[in-house]
């Protein structure tokens, strides 16, 4: 008698990469089109998220319709700029380099008490200012590059790197972005290096977070779907890791929302008055 063992089933983070890429390409095309844009703008950091976003944008619009911009600061790692160039070359997109040192230091000099951490946030917000100005100059829509893991952990500068109006990668975990990056031909050096925000010298994401992405993503997926901790532990994850994931998610919900407004009426925006962001009527 032939015995056949069934699969245990369960959640998967696996993606059909070709189908995912096609969907994200279409997303970029359509979300630009109804907003009246033909061109996109990507701030390229040298990391895997922005390189992958750039690859998708080039595929969606043609490289000539994509502006890539690197925004180094004097304290940024030289490797970041080198990798930004590498990404732009890989996808045939011209790269503009705008140094934000003068912007950031102009403010920092007036605040001698500024810490490296605070200055890191100023850098991220300076980049946002440049990005939105270039958007107007080129009539190109800025693309966000934040992945789902960092969005869930609140591991970004609020009103900084989360500011662009559309984001193709925001529902993909970091490990999924890595897989997609390889599929799209993002250069190996970029895919394989340890991820870093490069806001402070020597920084890495996994050291900051106290978690490995490969493990955090599986915990997140189960936590978001409502599996109890005991179930996640049985999959081979430690209590401490699970607690850390839940802690990061739950202290940062505000960063995934618009600012809190005191509700005093029955027409409070987003509380009572609800419209999708693409809503419009004929007038």
């Amino acid at each position: 008698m032939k015995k056949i063992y069934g699969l245990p089933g369960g959640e998967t983070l696996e993606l059909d990469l070709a189908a995912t890429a096609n969907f994200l390409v279409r997303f970029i095309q359509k979300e630009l089109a109804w907003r009246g844009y033909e061109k996109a703008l990507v701030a390229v950091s040298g990391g895997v998220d922005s390189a992958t976003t750039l690859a998708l944008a080039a595929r969606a619009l043609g490289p000539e319709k994509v502006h890539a911009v690197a925004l180094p600061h004097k304290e940024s790692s030289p490797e970041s700029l080198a990798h930004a160039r590498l990404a732009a070359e890989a996808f045939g997109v011209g790269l503009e380099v705008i140094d934000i040192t003068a912007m950031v230091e102009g403010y920092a000099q007036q605040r001698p008490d500024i810490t490296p951490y605070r200055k890191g946030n100023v850098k991220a917000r300076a980049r946002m200012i440049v990005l939105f100005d270039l958007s107007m100059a080129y009539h190109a829509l800025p693309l966000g590059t934040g992945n789902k893991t960092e969005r869930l952990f609140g591991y970004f500068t609020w009103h900084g790197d989360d500011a662009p109006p559309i984001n193709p990668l925001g529902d993909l975990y970091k490990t999924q972005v890595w897989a997609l990056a390889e599929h799209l031909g993002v250069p190996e050096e970029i895919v394989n290096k340890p991820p870093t925000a490069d806001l402070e010298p020597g920084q890495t994401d996994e050291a900051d977070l106290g978690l490995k992405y490969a493990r955090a993503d599986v915990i997140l997926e189960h936590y978001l779907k409502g599996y109890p901790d005991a179930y996640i532990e049985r999959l081979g994850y430690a209590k401490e890791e699970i607690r850390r994931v839940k802690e990061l998610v739950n202290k940062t919900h505000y960063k995934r929302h618009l600012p809190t407004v005191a509700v005093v009426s029955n027409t409070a925006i987003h509380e009572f008055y609800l419209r999708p962001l693409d809503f419009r009527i004929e007038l």
Partner: protein
Amino acid sequence: MVRHAVLQLAPEKGQITRNLARLGQALEAIAEDRPDVVVLPEAYPTAYFLQGGVRELAMTAAELEERLSELHARVWEGPLDLVIGFYELDEASGDYYNTAAYLELGGRGLIHRHRKVFLPTYGVFDEERYLSRGHSVEAFETRFGKAAILICEDFWHSITATIAALDGAEVIYVPSASPARGFDQARPQNARRWRTLAESVAGEHGVFVALASLVGFEAGKGMSGYSLVASPEGKILAEAPGFEEAALVVDLDLERIPPVRYENPLLADLKTGLGLLWNDLERVKERL
């Protein structure tokens, strides 16, 4: 043979005039195929996700009929039957519904209205916050035979198609709007499920199923498309691609229904056997 055209279109959010003009162009594009019945997706005139904007964009069935009749007179020679999903305002009650209408344009006009019974209000969906439920599924006579309409989640409950088939429907029209999710395979998970459902419902009851599924992006949500027509054996006769506009032109041979049902008489068996389960249906209903 009743020639059907399933139009898988991408409406622009809230742009009713433009979307109806786009429908006019699509009709002109398929005019040479001379379809008898054209099937459109759920919420076609406005697109699907409106939240509280339903109140601003819903129309009465009479308004819809007027606008479609005007369009029909402009672009079409002869009568045309049309199935279309739209947000409906019932003026008498002031209630809003997710409705699909069957219209005989150039003939009797509006001949049937199905108001969605199962309003998804979970996950990415929030229909019951803004809409009232319909409370009936029934077959109706068209000039070609008997049909029924089920909207999107209605069709995910096998009991609705069962009622439609028991009521005599030979064709079930399913306008839908299904945001793509689950990209672990080439075809997203929701679209795979739609295909399986259509095959099994059509095959179980010996009916044709025509699924018209919306496309286009609505604030990041990609409506998946993959519209299809299934035969009474549960075979896919035509299928549209995902995410892009397409027209399926399919001849439904209603004369094939009796022989197919003779070979696989599940519907007849159900008609006879249903009474045996009636007590249990009552019993479980009492416990709900």
